């Protein structure tokens, strides 16, 4: 019997396929080309090197290399000739400045070391837009981008500034009789506007056109008409208790105003917690944070908004006869409920609208007026100037250009050949084109004269982002290349011999200082921000004008009937598309920044790419499939999409839970061709589909062309499978139910009775009481998933960028990641209800339940969870390291000694949180990563933090809780002979977080914020039952729903 037993190696054996036969005969499926080098006697015989010689050389070179390694290299130490007073080598110097690139605005502190800016931090003196988002954090790397232009170009050839400026002047002089167009992104600097006005005086035929690549021009038109200036009201989410948002991605990229801090402040769990209702098509970052999210098609926005307005109007005693377009019957009861909630909240609510549509904005503004929100969450006096683009001006300019009426086009800080439909064609009819740009981008390569402009860290600036705020920017480094900042170029064109610095100083002293006399020029420069918080009409630049709210209200409501007629005419398409901006790349102006490319989209968790998001139902209908390679790498199909007659080919398709059925979404900012080696040829350019600066379009056809697109996705599991990873509770339960029920701490049954995981463990307890004990609290209720912390961590800790392929291989190096989980329709309770009690093949059982738990819901709740090294006090990684490269400190930190690590990776395998990162390659030196890793060229290397080691191949690394900052703070305290004050320093992630989700401190200091948070009833440890006793703990997420 024993002899007749046959073992088969695989299913191929059983079916007796030709492949199996081949396997039986050959050990290797493919021939190993050994004949090529061994079988070729002729080649071997002719070789000059015999095998013995080879061994001799090998031995000799090994010995030589060994001996050479013993020799000390001579290291030079070169001091300054004359040391600047402000610099002490090894000690950072901070300068206040302002980031503004026409898209993002942030008052910042610039950290410089030995004269090099290496990090941006939020300026805590500012109260408006005080956070730094991912792009602002990453912008310091753009300074060291080696793709920046280094010399002015005339007709493609390098020339001197004198020559280039002379050419520009003669072109401007020669354009008399024709129009001159100066096209810029939004300008919020009053002094820059003054220079442009002076330029206009000199060249009366000059027109200044403001063009925002992502435009909100139609909204601005309303407020310009109402308020007399191109500005948006300031939205104060901290004064609202209910926000209803129609496709407004206000936590992502909306109108330049960063409301995340106020949003988080208003959402502190409690009686008056802000409730957030989002109605949208794509799963935006904002929508994923909502308490209630309703899926809508773009064509339904109008009808839904008008319907809601009519309900609110009747609820608040206003005329409510509007024409309501066709509306899904399921939506109406939901909208009724929202209307009821809005009316109940009265003046403590806020209605926001996304997109670029005058009619939608009119209804939102009217609803806010009807509810009386102008006294709280909508501030018409302290209005915001961060978006000023004017579509009509842009349209007129393009028309004039195409008609050949324009002599000179000068662009500054924009890239219309890439972003603006029809620009490339129109500009070919223009005599001379001048680009003021930092790189030879798509537009600059079409220009006759290219003037390289300085980075914001090399420039002066004075900004007026909102009515009661004025901020200054100052250079922190001399221009790296032969560049001049835009204002200085313009000044020289006007014939002014003043430098912009002097011009700005004079402007400040005549226009701003008289209004805020305590802020002299030097004090203002030191603080960076001049703010007026008084409620009276006290402005810096603009004159006070009188307007009355009742008058505004009447004028808004008057126009509603016409708008409702316009909205009712909107036709639904079979498919509708939404153009959105990713949290990292934004409008795409900083696309060549590898940190931003590597930052995964918080919702889709895909980096280095854009794609068409589609709902699961539509994917099935159109035959799109997602698949995984054997290593887990995620694949998708391609589609050809046609929007309004414009076709975009080979767009990867991604199935997105929460996407409204019948809609697709695509991010702009990708598909660059002339941006730089990191950005070129990534994704597709969605701007080509936008013909009228709109944010959505209802005329879409989608064609499945199959194929396989390889995504760089860093998260493949999407649900929590019923575990307590992100603990979540409804506000009602949080307020009324015993915390033990919604924040259950795991207990083990022992002979001593029931004990918590902390009390039952096999490790010895370390002494954490005598000195510091650093802990970190992460409030999952405040975290919006924006990713600023991830980029900040990259900067601070010299985390390498690994590129698309390695991210796909799950070798991303993020020390800090933000996990995103979707809710599933299946849960243990649901399974019990449906009777999933079967075993094996009979009836549905536990395996079926778990299989269904893996599938995200069609309309899921979304949670974000930042996960870094948890600094376990009983760390599983420490016990398995064979060389003791990772060990524990008395201060509650898990240390990692890179030079001791031999790369066994046992620690990563034993880490329950999967936060350890292995250097598979020498990312800083391997030519494979030349295009993506900024530290590979001499400029990009300047951004490295000199206080943190640059790790090499074969070494494990992980979050150190910014130990360099801890050590620095301790030393500063010792130098002063004082105790460390709570809040005097924090980690890079906590500092970048504008919502204050991350709190870091010493729990042995009983007065510290973090020690109070540790005792909070919402606090819990991740995977508590493992017994690792982490130094990081989380605060339960509270959803504001019953």
């Amino acid at each position: 019997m024993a002899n007749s037993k046959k073992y088969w190696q695989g299913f191929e054996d059983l079916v007796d396929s030709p492949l199996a036969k081949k396997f039986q005969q050959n050990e290797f499926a493919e021939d190993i080309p050994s004949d090529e080098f061994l079988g070729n006697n002729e080649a071997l015989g002719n070789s000059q090197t015999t095998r013995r010689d080879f061994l001799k050389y090998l031995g000799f070179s090994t010995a030589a290399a060994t001996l050479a390694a013993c020799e000390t290299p001579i290291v030079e130490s070169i001091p300054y000739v004359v040391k600047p007073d402000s610099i002490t080598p090894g000690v950072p110097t901070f300068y206040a400045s302002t980031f503004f690139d026409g898209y993002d605005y942030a008052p910042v502190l610039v950290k410089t070391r030995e004269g090099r800016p290496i990090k941006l931090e939020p300026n805590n003196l500012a109260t408006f837009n005080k956070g730094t988002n991912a792009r602002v954090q990453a912008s310091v790397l753009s300074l060291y981008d080696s793709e920046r232009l280094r010399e002015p170009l005339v007709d493609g050839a390098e020339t001197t500034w004198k020559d280039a400026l002379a050419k520009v002047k003669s072109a401007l002089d020669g354009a008399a009789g024709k129009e001159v167009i100066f096209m810029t992104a939004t300008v919020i600097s009053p002094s820059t506007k003054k220079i442009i006005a002076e330029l206009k005086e000199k060249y009366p035929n000059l027109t200044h056109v403001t063009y925002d690549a992502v435009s909100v021009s139609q909204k601005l038109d309303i407020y310009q008409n109402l308020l007399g200036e191109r500005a948006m009201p300031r939205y104060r989410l901290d004064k609202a208790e209910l926000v209803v948002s129609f496709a407004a991605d206000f936590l992502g990229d909306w109108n330049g105003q960063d409301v995340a801090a106020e949003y988080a402040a208003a959402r502190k769990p409690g009686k008056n917690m802000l409730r957030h209702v989002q109605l949208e098509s794509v799963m935006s970052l904002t929508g994923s944070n909502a308490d209630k999210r309703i899926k809508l098609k773009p064509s339904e926005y109008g009808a839904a908004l008008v319907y809601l307005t009519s309900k609110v109007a009747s609820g608040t005693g206003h005329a409510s006869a509007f024409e309501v377009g066709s509306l899904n019957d399921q939506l109406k009861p939901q909208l009724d409920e929202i209307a009821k909630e809005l009316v109940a909240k009265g003046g403590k609510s806020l209605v926001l609208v996304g997109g670029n549509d005058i009619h939608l904005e009119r209804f939102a503004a009217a609803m806010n007026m009807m509810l009386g929100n102008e006294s709280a969450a909508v501030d018409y006096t302290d209005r915001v100037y961060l978006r000023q683009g004017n579509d009509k001006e842009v349209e007129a300019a393009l028309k004039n250009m195409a008609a050949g009426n324009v002599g000179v086009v000068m662009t500054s800080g924009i890239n219309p050949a890439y972003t603006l439909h029809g620009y490339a064609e129109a500009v070919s009819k223009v005599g001379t084109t001048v680009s003021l740009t930092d790189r030879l981008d798509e537009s600059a390569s079409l220009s006759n004269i290219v003037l390289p402009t300085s980075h914001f860290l090399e420039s002066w600036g004075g900004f007026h982002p909102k009515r009661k705020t004025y901020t200054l920017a100052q250079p922190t480094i001399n221009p790296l290349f032969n560049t001049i900042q835009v204002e200085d170029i313009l000044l020289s064109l006007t014939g002014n011999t003043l430098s912009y610095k002097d011009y700005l100083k004079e402007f400040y002293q005549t226009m701003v200082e008289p209004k805020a006399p305590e802020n002299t020029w030097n004090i203002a420069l030191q603080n960076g921000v001049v703010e007026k918080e008084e409620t009276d009409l006290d402005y810096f630049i603009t004159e006070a004008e009188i307007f009355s709210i009742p008058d505004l209200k009447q004028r808004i409501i008057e126009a509603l009937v016409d708008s409702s007629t316009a909205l009712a005419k909107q036709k639904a398409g079979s498919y509708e598309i939404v153009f959105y901006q990713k949290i990292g790349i934004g409008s795409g102006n900083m696309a060549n920044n590898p940190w931003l490319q590597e930052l995964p989209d918080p919702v889709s968790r895909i980096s280095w790419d854009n794609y068409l998001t589609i709902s699961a139902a539509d994917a099935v209908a159109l035959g799109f499939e997602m698949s995984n390679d054997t290593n887990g790498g995620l694949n998708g199909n391609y589609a050809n999409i046609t929007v309004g007659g414009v076709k975009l080919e080979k767009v990867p398709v991604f199935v997105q839970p929460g996407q409204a059925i019948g809609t697709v979404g695509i991010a702009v900012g990708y598909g660059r061709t002339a941006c730089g080696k990191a950005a070129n040829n990534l994704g597709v350019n969605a701007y080509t589909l936008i013909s009228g600066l709109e944010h959505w379009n209802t005329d879409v056809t989608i064609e499945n062309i199959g194929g396989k697109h390889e995504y760089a996705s860093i998260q493949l599991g999407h649900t929590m499978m019923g575990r307590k990873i992100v603990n979540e509770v409804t506000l009602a339960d949080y307020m009324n139910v015993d915390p033990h029920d919604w924040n259950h701490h795991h207990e083990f049954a022992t002979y001593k009775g029931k004990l918590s995981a902390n009390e039952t463990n096999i490790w010895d307890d370390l002494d954490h009481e005598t000195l510091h004990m650093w802990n970190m609290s992460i409030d999952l209720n405040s975290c919006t998933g924006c990713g600023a912390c991830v980029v900040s961590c990259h900067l601070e800790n010299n985390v390498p960028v690994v590129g698309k392929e390695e991210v796909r291989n799950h070798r991303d190096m993020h020390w800090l990641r933000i996990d995103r989980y979707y809710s599933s329709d299946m849960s243990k309770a649901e399974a019990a209800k449906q009777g999933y009690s079967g075993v094996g093949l009979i009836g549905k059982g536990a395996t079926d339940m778990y299989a269904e738990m893996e599938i995200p819901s069609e309309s899921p709740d979304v949670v974000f969870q930042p996960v870094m090294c948890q600094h376990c006090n009983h760390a599983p990684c420490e016990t398995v390291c064979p060389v003791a490269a990772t060990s524990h400190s008395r201060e509650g930190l898990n240390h990692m000694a890179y030079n001791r690590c031999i790369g066994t990776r046992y620690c990563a395998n034993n880490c329950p949180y999967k936060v350890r990162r292995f250097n598979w390659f020498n990312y800083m030196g391997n030519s494979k990563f030349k295009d993506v890793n900024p530290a590979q060229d001499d400029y990009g290397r300047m951004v490295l933090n000199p206080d943190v080691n640059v790790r090499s191949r074969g070494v494990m690394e992980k979050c150190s809780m910014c130990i360099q900052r801890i050590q620095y703070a301790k030393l500063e305290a010792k130098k002063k002979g004082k105790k460390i004050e709570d809040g005097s320093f924090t980690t890079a992630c906590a500092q970048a977080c504008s919502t204050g989700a991350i709190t870091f401190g010493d729990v042995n200091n009983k007065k510290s914020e973090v020690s109070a948070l540790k005792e909070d009833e919402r606090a819990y440890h991740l995977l508590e039952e493992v017994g690792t006793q982490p130094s990081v703990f989380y605060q339960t997420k509270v959803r504001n729903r019953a």
Partner: protein
Amino acid sequence: MPLNFKFATLISVTTHLRFMLRIQFKRFFTFLILVLALGFHTSALAFEGDAANGKKLFKANCAACHKLDKKLIGPALGDMTERRSAEWLVAWIRDNGALRASGDADAQAVFDEYNGMPMTAFPALSDQDIYDILQYSIEGDAPAVPQGGTPTPTGEPVATTPDYVLPMLFVLGAVFVLLLILLIKMKNTLRVVQGKDAESIGDEISAFRKGLVANKFLMTIGTLAVGIFVLYFAYWWLMGIGVEKDYQPVQPIAFSHKVHAGQNKIDCNYCHSSARHSKTSGIPSTNVCMNCHKYVDGSEIVDESGQLKYGGDRSPEIAKIYAAIGWDVDKLAYIEGYEQKAVQWVRVHNLPDLVYFNHAQHVTAGGVDCETCHGPVSEMDVLKQYSDLTMGWCVECHRETEVNTDNGYYDGYHENIKEKYHTDKITVDKIGGLECGKCHY
């Protein structure tokens, strides 16, 4: 160190002699002038001053701009009492502006000669103070009194080998060889007598070797001994790789710490000013050198034989500083638009990138003396690495050094530690000074 010591003694002795001679001559000369002057200008010696106090005051108040024998920012002052009356000098020194304002022609002339650069007024100096300074200007520098008595140039006692030892050894060796030959001859003779064949020395040796090889015990012990010997030396040789103790590179400027820190007693922190504030001690920038070397150009340096080392010219080494920063030695001013070149020093103490070391932590917070790690720098003409700079060396110190408990930062922590570990001796390792992450991140 003995070599350095001898060298230093030699210099100080020769300097001493040379100064003695010069001063004697100068005194005589001054006396002569005084005698002559008495006849013509009775007011010239209308003061009595204490040259020692004058020297102190001169160094404190005047030396930044004046020298006795040489024009600096202001005129040379060695002969000022010959040129001007004491009253005039007192008036000028106390408030030259007022003197000019009073219409004094001489005062105005001096002012104009030096391009209208006003001299600082010294209203705080008393008449006697000024007389002391004037006295000092007449007497000049007294010879430095060598401390600790007059050193005699005694050499280190050298243990020499007596002359007869070596020949004796040869003789003994020859006797031994002779005895050996005699022994073999004798043995062979005995063998011949017994009727056996005689054996050569070679045969004897090979027989001995065979016996040795056959003895397994001896072979094992021998192999083990050789093996351990080789391993021992290989281990220490390998452990020494990268340890650059005594590394003493040639620097671009022959800068001597012995002259600066040793003889002139300049505080380490004066030049390495960031050591108290920063992780790096900081190589002084060239402008710091110029704080002194504007005035000290090396022309006074004397060599071992007591001669001016550069024949009264400026030192070519100090000239390298001038070349770096662009100092015009004749005009005593920085050259405008000069393209400055940094001095490319060779770094002596090289820690690998994998370790974070902070000077401020040790100097300011820890109160560690520079010499603890850097050794007797004030005795080094050319700086060298004194310590191992290995991790074992760091750790050893962290185990032994007690923490400065007076620092307010530690309030409470020390009580905690004392209570927890029942010890009064709080060393660096007790507050976590041996944890990996404290230095490696």
